[in-house]
């Protein structure tokens, strides 16, 4: 019947369109994950020191998943147009496997982002910043990263300069509390890198020291990467779910 053929054509058209979108999203996912992997932001030493670089594992998986999605979308388009049961069965099974990998990547990225709490960075900063006998190079990296961070974002500590007062730290072991209530980087510095008013900084006079914490400056870039991988992957998976359901329905209507 004519109506049946029209339905079939519409279904085919939708499936082809769905696969085209999947193909494009696959390319976009690959591009985004290559960017995340090859362009670690300045805070990468802090992340590396937390020994939790799941975000990069997620990004690597994302690269391969993106390429697989692109290849499979082409297979899907061919299968839909030819109405071949074997091709579509292969397509569906491979898509499910790829989706499983993408699911793992999304969930890992989301979980990793949750683990980056202020307490994690606070503990790391207190234990490693200006450690007098650095155990390995990563301690020097942590110190350099924190100095850069505090200089550029005009902030101090994770939650504020009081972090250095409330807790003992590696910094406190080598710098007396009376001379250095907080590191010199927390002071407002002039063009030469010297505090504009050292006494004002030590007293904590507003305007001569940075009184806000750096956590916002840290969580911004880190979250962007995690959300990029996790939520974009989630969106792709939702769309893929719809296309796969449609393909299964189409497959069941094909004659052998």
């Amino acid at each position, binding site marked *: *019947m004519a109506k*049946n*053929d029209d339905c*079939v*054509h519409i279904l085919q058209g939708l499936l082809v369109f769905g696969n085209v979108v999947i193909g494009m999203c696959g390319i976009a996912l690959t591009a985004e994950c290559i960017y995340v992997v090859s362009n670690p932001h300045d805070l990468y030493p802090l992340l590396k020191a937390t020994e939790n670089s799941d975000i990069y594992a997620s990004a690597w998986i994302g690269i391969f998943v993106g390429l697989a999605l692109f290849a499979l979308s082409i297979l899907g388009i061919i299968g839909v*147009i*030819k*109405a071949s049961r074997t091709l579509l*069965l292969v397509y*569906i*099974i491979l898509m*499910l496997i790829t*989706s*499983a990998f993408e*699911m793992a990547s*999304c*969930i890992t990225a*989301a*979980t990793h*982002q*949750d*683990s980056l*709490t202020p*307490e994690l960075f*606070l*503990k790391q900063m*207190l*234990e490693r910043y200006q450690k007098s006998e650095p155990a390995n190079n990563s301690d020097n990296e942590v110190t350099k990263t924190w100095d850069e961070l505090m200089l550029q974002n005009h902030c101090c500590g994770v939650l504020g300069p*009081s972090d250095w*007062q409330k*807790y*003992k*730290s590696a910094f*406190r072991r080598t710098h*007396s*509390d*009376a001379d250095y*209530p907080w590191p010199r980087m927390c002071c407002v510095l002039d063009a030469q890198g010297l505090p504009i008013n050292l*006494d004002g900084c*030590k*007293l*904590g*006079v*507003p305007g001569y*020291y940075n*009184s806000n914490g750096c956590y916002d400056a840290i969580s911004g870039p880190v979250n962007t990467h995690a959300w990029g991988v*996790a*939520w974009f992957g*989630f969106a792709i*998976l939702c769309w893929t*779910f719809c296309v*796969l*359901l449609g393909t*299964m329905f189409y*497959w*069941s*209507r*094909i*004659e*052998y």
Partner: protein
Amino acid sequence: KPHSRPRHTDTRTMLPLLLLLLPAAHGIARLRYTPVLTEEPPLGGQKTASTFVLDQPRCVFKDYGNADIWLVVALDGSRWSSAGQGASRGPCTPHQIPPHPHPLPAAESTFDNTARPGSNETAFQSFPDPVHAYMTLNATLVNYPCPKPAGDITVLRVGSETSCAEDETRPTCNGPLPGPGPYRVKFLALEGSVPVAETLWSMPIMLTEAKSPNTISTTGSGHSAGMIAITTILSILFAILLAGLVAMLVFWSSDSCSGSSTFSKPESVTVRRYNTHHVYDQPASRL
């Protein structure tokens, strides 16, 4: 007479009475000013682990232009004065005071106003044991002009000199405080070596005590709503797809087993449903 018939076994009720008489006997003026920590402007370093910041005593020692104004810093053993005697207590509660091997009496009862600054009895380097109170931050009225110009920050940072902390030749060093306290301070004006005026003792000042970073718990922050949403939704979707795949395979195997229900494959773009009721319609439906 204060010594006759003591009514309490604790002799300290008589000491304050006795000591009240002493300043009157020596003619020291008791100024009604209490040294306070700086509240205006709010300072981030008002209290650190070894320093604290006081307001300068502006417009307090107006009549003592010739006197040296010293700051007396004493370690306060409020534990003794907290036995319900009504001694003033600041924000420190007795259980916050670290135990001292030799219980210390309250600051106001041990400090002798005739003590000379720079002597062994008031040397910073011997504080807190055996010296219970040291004198530092020497100034004159010239350093504390009255009235205070608006917008100026007039403070005294107790504990800022680290260079002379171990130097026995500088007994009036304003060195970093050796522990969390509690400390009480007062200003004392001396003309020559004669005390002429003093302020009241401040409230007990407790400094911050640093905790070890091991007390920071980095685990168990819980999972955010986003992560739970992603996991749940994706798991459900994946389960539906797997169910669909299983249904497909079952359908396929049942399809291929009962061979009579399949037609031969027509031209590739048409899909027809096999339905015996419409067999006679087939030629008409073929377009």
